[in-house]
């Protein structure tokens, strides 16, 4: 039987999640032996054409052209998986959703009329059916490998939707909020990075987006008692996963 065909697609993004695939130095050649990498513009000029068994999609939809392109990719893909905060929540560029994009364009470009862009940055799932969303800014290498292995085996990937707090507890990392009063999004953020920030004495800043059913209002109330201003709270939720519904709702409460 022929190896499944893999395609990697890019929309508005920093390329960091695709790079995470190339960063699997120990596994890359083995993956290449089990998958036919049919489309991966950043890594190869080869194009064997669709349809594709698995499509990994990085980036968010920010142009009319890209809104059409994702429809075509969905049509020629068996399993479509989004990777990273841009593709799953709109990314840092979704900060435009909270502002006037025409004003943004005028601020950055001398000739705003040369620029064609949508007023919003939206996740792939707003446009097409997505079979699995892998969180993170960037995605975790470990979770990406688990996702590829699970997809090849035809099983569900083991990607817990619990909070960052569970990772800190599992690693024995002292709580930065409780011990030092440092604002941390850990209680409302999905696990997966390996509790990186608290491990260096820093509060989680939400790279993996909201956990399942987060109680952000309760966290905000607590952080306010530690001295966070409404503006500080707003900006805490309004970053790399700003347009994820649970974070957007909470940030707007502090506008």
């Amino acid at each position, binding site marked *: 039987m022929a190896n499944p065909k893999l395609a990697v697609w890019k929309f508005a993004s*920093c390329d960091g999640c695709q790079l995470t695939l190339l960063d699997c130095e120990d596994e890359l050649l083995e993956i290449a032996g089990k998958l036919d990498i049919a489309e991966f513009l950043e890594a190869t000029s080869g194009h064997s054409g669709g349809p594709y068994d698995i499509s990994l999609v990085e980036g968010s939809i920010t142009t009319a052209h890209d809104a059409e392109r994702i429809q075509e990719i969905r049509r020629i893909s068996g399993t479509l998986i989004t990777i990273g905060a841009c593709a799953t929540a709109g990314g840092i560029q979704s900060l435009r959703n909270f502002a006037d994009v025409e004003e943004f364009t005028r601020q950055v470009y001398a000739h705003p009329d040369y620029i064609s862009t949508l007023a919003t940055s939206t996740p792939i799932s707003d446009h097409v059916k997505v079979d699995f969303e892998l969180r993170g*800014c960037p995605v975790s290498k470990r979770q990406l490998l688990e996702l590829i292995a699970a997809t090849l085996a035809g099983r569900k990937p083991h990607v817990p939707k619990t909070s960052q707090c569970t990772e800190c507890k599992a690693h024995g990392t002292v709580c930065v909020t409780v011990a030092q009063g440092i604002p941390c999004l850990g209680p409302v953020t999905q696990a997966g990075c390996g509790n990186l920030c608290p491990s260096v004495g820093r509060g989680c800043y939400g790279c993996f987006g909201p956990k399942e059913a987060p109680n952000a209002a309760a966290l905000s109330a607590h952080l306010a008692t530690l001295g966070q201003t409404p503006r500080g709270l707003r900006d805490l939720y309004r970053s790399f996963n700003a347009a994820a519904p649970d974070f957007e709702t909470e940030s707007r409460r502090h506008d």
Partner: protein
Amino acid sequence: MTERVIQVDALARVEGEGALYVKLNGQELESCEFRIFEPPRFFEAFLQGRAYGEAPDITSRICGICPIAYIASACQAMEMALGITLSPEIEALRRILYCGEWIQSHTLHAAMLHAPDFLGLDSAIDIAKLHPELVRKALRLKKLGNTLMETIGGRAVHPVNTRVGGFYAAPDAAKLQALLPELDWGVAAARELTLAFAGFDFPADAGDYHFVSLSHPELYPIDQGRIVSSRGLDIAPAEYDDHFVEEHVARSNALHGRMRDGTAYLTGPLARYANNFAKLSPTAQATAHEAGLGAVETNPFKSILVRMVEVQYAVEEAARLIRAYRAPNPSFIAVPPRAGVGHGASEAPRGICYHRYEIDAEGRIVSARIVPPTSQNQPQIERDLARVVRANLALDEAALKLRCEQTIRNYDPCISCATHFLKLTVERG
């Protein structure tokens, strides 16, 4: 009279989305455009109003390949605005981290994205079928760069341990020293890869370049320095605007960087190398000579060799700094916010990454300006394309198109960065 159009709609093996359009009328080159269609993301606009401390983490998301460049330039600019002087220990740790990014990014580009061009192959995975040991060596070297970034920064893409004023936590000396055996291996591996790539058949070419790079009194420039050029420029990063401009052209979502007099210039490995050869280690210089490089290299197709010499230097430099490492204490310098303006410039793997911020008395960003290397190189890339097309008119369509693509990949263009970049079209008339 025949019209020839060479067009590449989506360039492969570059970071981001770009295209090329070349139109020829007989022997006359009518137009030569390198386009960036990576969608704009408006970083400079949405940074306004954010806290100064957020700039390094937010701007790192401009590029997943060179996040340290953005982090370092943003930190440096904010430190200038706030009047923070770093301890030598913090500066050394930031330079080790930056060496990790050079090793990772350069090895990725040279071995996995650029080398296939010289072997007539599509990808590193195809190279692995013919030369598995070479690709394994490159992957192990790239991993070493990532390991440095993970050990210091927490993760390789968008590290979390960096902050304005230094680091959240200083890594243990023992954890860094544990990397020394692999770094010693890495010096030899970088040299071997340089010499392996030196055997490629390089197209003859020579650019008349104005080399612009950073320069440091003692060290090969990576994390900081003055901005100097092969034509006598020598300025502080704060004087950037007096000498350089960015213009917005219709065909591109990337601004084009030029000198104030409108001329193109070149930033990146060839420029750093030409302006700073004497500051490379004697061992890296020896590898350069063995690979057939002079003290100045003007053939852009040989940039792959210069990148690998820089990898050897970065591995040696990381090892040198780790041997001398003393954990910074405190791990960061914190000061109360104040109104001010700060400039930061560091050498991203692709060239100078310049940041300027104005902050208010509360430390909120009033204005932000970010000039990535690929925007600066865009006018020079188009000049290179014109020169290469004129010199290779006899090539057939497929060969000329490939040569044009190579000309662009010589720059390791980072299109995600430059958007504010490529489709390849050659039109012959």
